[in-house]
């Protein structure tokens, strides 16, 4: 089933000084259960694409549909995860995770039960009454993902979610996040600068051009391995890395 369909989407930012054409004629579709990575040069418009899909902005041209319905405003069909974890320091981990349901005024026992299950399943149950400041970077990022999942979104939008972490943590959190997303059967769209990260995670990699972004090329990554870490050990990994790297840099 097709979850997301972007058709000839473009966006121009207006400021007093100038007009900035960020993206132009982006056409992209994502199937249920897919893990897509979006790579491209700095400032090419990746964050802009995620903002459009999440409904934070309206495109200047083209259409975006989520499960057949046009996107009009932010809703619970998409879950946005940002570069920093954005946990609220004054809320416990559990309260942080229930932020979404609280906003939607939907703190039913069912929702709470689901959040509890997620906490238990992904190793944060003992930390539910702690404050974010008492958790490690990796745990915080996991908590941020669970917060996103608490609204049960169909499509996860991940904007460089690991770039604030150091290299070691990054590999393991990347692995954790992948496993959580797969076991919750979510569809994900990941933006990253890090090509090896893209190759280790994605089913499909979409390479964007420099600003204004257009889709330059799409690659289906067919490395057969169960986890990102295992993928990195495979021989095809290096080959894919080189291919994508060349495509991004030319």
């Amino acid at each position, binding site marked *: 089933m097709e979850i997301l369909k972007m058709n000839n989407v473009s966006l121009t930012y207006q400021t007093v000084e100038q007009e900035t054409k960020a993206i132009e004629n982006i056409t992209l579709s994502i199937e249920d259960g897919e893990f897509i990575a979006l790579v491209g040069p700095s400032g090419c418009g990746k964050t802009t694409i995620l903002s459009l899909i*999440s409904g934070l902005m309206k495109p200047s041209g083209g259409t975006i549909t989520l499960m057949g319905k046009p996107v009009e405003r*932010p809703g*619970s069909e998409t879950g*946005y995860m*940002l570069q*920093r974890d*954005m946990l*609220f320091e004054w809320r416990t981990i559990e*309260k942080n995770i229930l932020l979404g349901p609280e906003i939607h005024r939907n703190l039913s026992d069912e929702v709470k039960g689901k959040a509890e299950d997620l906490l238990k399943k992904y190793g944060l149950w003992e930390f539910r009454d702690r404050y974010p400041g008492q958790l490690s970077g990796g745990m915080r990022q996991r908590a941020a993902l669970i917060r996103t999942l608490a609204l049960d979104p169909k499509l996860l939008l991940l904007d460089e979610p690991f770039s604030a972490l150091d290299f070691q943590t990054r590999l393991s959190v990347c692995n954790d996040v992948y496993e959580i997303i797969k076991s919750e059967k979510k569809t994900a769209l990941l933006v990253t600068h890090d090509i090896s990260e893209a190759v280790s995670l994605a089913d499909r990699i979409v390479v964007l051009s420099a600003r204004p972004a257009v889709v330059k090329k799409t690659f289906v990554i067919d490395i057969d391995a169960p986890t990102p870490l295992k993928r990195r050990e495979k021989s095809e990994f290096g080959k894919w890395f080189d291919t994508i790297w060349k495509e991004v840099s030319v």
Partner: protein
Amino acid sequence: MKKQKSEHELFIYKNRNRKIKIIVVQVLILICFLGLWELAAQLEWIDSFITSSPSRVIKMLGELKEQGLWKHIGTTLYECVIGFAVSTALGSLIAVALWWSDFLRKVLEPYIVVLNSLPKIALGPIIIIWVGADAKAIIMMTVLICIIVTIISTLGGLMATDEGKILLMRSMGATKRQILTKLVLPGSVPTFLSVLKINVGLAWVGTIMGEYLVSGAGLGYLIIYGGQVFKLDLVMTSTVILCFLAAVMYFAVALVERFFKKRSF
């Protein structure tokens, strides 16, 4: 047999020891100061007519008790607390309104800047003429002195909210009101607490200044009156009481701070 202390117990023990030491030294300094003052006055190293002395202050306290000490304290305390409460509440409300409306904020910005740099005491005569030469004028002076600082500092705290967190809430479909109540306000509690502390100090400045300008009662009045008739005992005694009251109010705010730090929102 004595049980070996665990590392944590040892840490707590050391920590407490240090705290006790600090308090002991603090008290010692006060005692030394008062003792020296008294000694110097008794031995006539200093002229206690001008400098007064602890024993004279105590004697003056006794005298004042006959002459409505409580009324003076009550008056000043009343003016100060009302001024403090009104300016804090009103100032915070205005700051929230300015956070809410970009337009209003841009419009009022120059006015606030000018009001902030204006020495409020210059408005004394105007206040007296407008609201009358009584407690109302003093409260007005206190509010004027505190409120601009409250608005500026609180607004600064509100505006410093992490853009990323706002974006996160918007992506979850939060309304502006929810962003205010769930993110901006709780995130600004530390700013608000520091504003409270600043305001305690400023409220006293405003009240005493107001009493210097107009008053028939209050500690500021006693100080001014004492100065005029050259009764330094009266001036010193009133100042000591003032120190005491300011300290009590500061600790009350510290209690509020403790309360806020303990709970999550």
